[in-house]
């Protein structure tokens, strides 16, 4: 028997969901509102009503160049995502379609690397980057973010590929498809939504990564995370400018996330429901 849910209950759940969503979104909203305040307004205390000044944005842009860290963020997040996909697609593919006795162990081992605190390997990685000339380079950071996110990318793709029924691949073999045709006409179209979801999520993760991007860069390869951090010193905190810088940093990814929310939700929940 289906559970009868009264209208009142539904309304209460809807209101609660909106409330939770609002609480989660509030810091971002407050950052955006603060970016339109004057500096005295920003430190004056809690207020949801800015004077709608754009001076912070002008100042942020004149003090520091926004375009360069923006381009660094784009190159590093997209670059590291493509590199991760290049490695992870064949890896996840073979684990999903030709698993061995050790496949589960390998997957668990990969995931376990994410459990280690990043700071534990800061010194050795810093030294390796210094000695190989990778400090403050886009290539260095791209490689670093690729390695950091690779376990998640492999896991997501593995879960997705596992959903493709083996019988469909067998059917294509019976239908006379060569391996190439099988990949082009059957596998890829079925895997594209999963690859797209993984790509979007990984770009967001890489875009927001702050630990390594701040520590391994200074000026040349500094992405937007470092751009935000640069406003927190040295003359003390300028809340309004910091908020403007933060808004500028998160705006691109927020817009991208907004337009791709369906794929993202699918990416985060696949495997959960059949």
């Amino acid at each position, binding site marked *: 028997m289906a559970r009868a849910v009264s209208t009142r209950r539904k309304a209460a759940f809807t209101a609660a969901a909106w409330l939770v969503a609002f609480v989660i979104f509030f810091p971002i909203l407050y950052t955006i509102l603060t970016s339109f305040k004057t500096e005295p307004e920003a430190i004056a205390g809690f207020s949801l009503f800015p004077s709608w000044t754009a001076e912070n944005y002008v100042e942020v842009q004149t003090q520091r160049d926004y375009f360069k860290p923006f381009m660094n963020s784009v190159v590093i997040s997209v670059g590291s995502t493509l590199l991760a996909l290049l490695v992870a697609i064949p890896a996840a593919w073979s684990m999903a379609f030709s698993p061995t006795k050790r496949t589960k162990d390998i997957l668990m081992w990969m995931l376990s690397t994410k459990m280690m605190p990043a700071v534990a390997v800061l010194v050795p990685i810093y030294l390796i980057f210094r000695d190989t000339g990778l400090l403050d380079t886009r290539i260095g950071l791209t490689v670093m973010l690729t390695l950091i996110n690779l376990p998640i990318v492999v896991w997501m793709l593995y879960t997705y590929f596992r959903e493709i*029924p083996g019988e*469909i691949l*067998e*059917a294509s073999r*019976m*239908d006379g498809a060569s391996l190439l045709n099988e990949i082009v006409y059957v596998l890829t*179209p079925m895997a594209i939504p999963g690859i797209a979801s993984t790509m979007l999520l990984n770009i967001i993760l890489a875009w927001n990564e702050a630990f390594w991007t701040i520590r391994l860069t200074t000026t040349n390869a500094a992405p937007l995370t470092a751009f935000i951090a640069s406003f927190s010193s040295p003359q003390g905190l300028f809340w309004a400018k910091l908020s403007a810088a933060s808004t500028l940093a998160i705006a691109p990814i927020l817009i991208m996330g907004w337009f791709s929310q369906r794929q993202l939700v699918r990416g985060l929940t696949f495997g959960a429901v059949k």
Partner: protein
Amino acid sequence: MGQITLKNVSKSFGATVIIPEIDLTIEDGEFVVFVGPSGCGKSTLLRLIAGLEDTSAGAIVIDGRDVTGEAPAKRKLAMVFQSYALYPHMTVAKNIAFPLKMAGEDKAAIDRKVADAARILNLTNYLDRRPGQLSGGQRQRVAIGRAIVRQPSAFLFDEPLSNLDAALRGTMRLEISELHHQLKTTMIYVTHDQVEAMTMADKIVVLNAGNIEQVGSPMELYKTPKNLFVAGFIGSPKMNLINGAVAAKHGAATVGIRPEHMQISTSAGEWKATVGVAEHLGSDTFLHVNADGVGPLTVRADGEISVRHGDTVFLTPDPTKLHRFSEDGRAM
């Protein structure tokens, strides 16, 4: 043409033997059903013929050509899967056209053959839909359509109806039988449902633990089962198998009598029995009784019979329809 011969074919996964050694010949145009309980190796046998599994030993010969080492596509066989295995991102038309496209046929020929298949299978109005927008029966028809356009030398069906509801299963059963009469192509059909096997097959292959228990026409298997396994598996409701004194009286370790081969009376008969559950189907009534000195039996009675739970009835088995089995389970 579509003659398929299995010569000493065996299949093992590691140390586990799934199919010990099988010899079987399927004649051109025959409708052969592989039937047996779950895990008896019938699907594995079909997949070996299809080329989706490699044989551990033996040879598979199709129309005189040894195809044992050949890829599935080269065997000129078409397969219909239990899960339909349609391409979800393609329309019905594209699904049906896929094997033709792979065979490199030109567009005009593909369009014509797809239209023909759609007409035969009543899918003309659904050609632009995707599999997700179709019912189970329609999806199964698309899967069959995809198989027939290639004009294969044989069709392989792997439990194609088990995902459908009972009513649709009955309809599709007829449609597949009808298709066989139209196309006259060899069909190998795997099922665990003995009703499907009995109603569709020219020849039934009964499998148990990877071994062929018996091969024959449906009526041969029904009338003269070679052993206890076939006797118990073929026929619905199942044959009653009786041990002990009753069997000894007939000089056998076990005797079998089908539910429809016993006369039922309320006054006199060979075995006195108490009625348990009576299943009224309208045309027939299946009585589950407990006979004194014999044990539980199922009896097929007239649909109009009026007996109730706890009533006493008398049963008389038809002596000409009695099956006798030896100690090792073989028919005597």
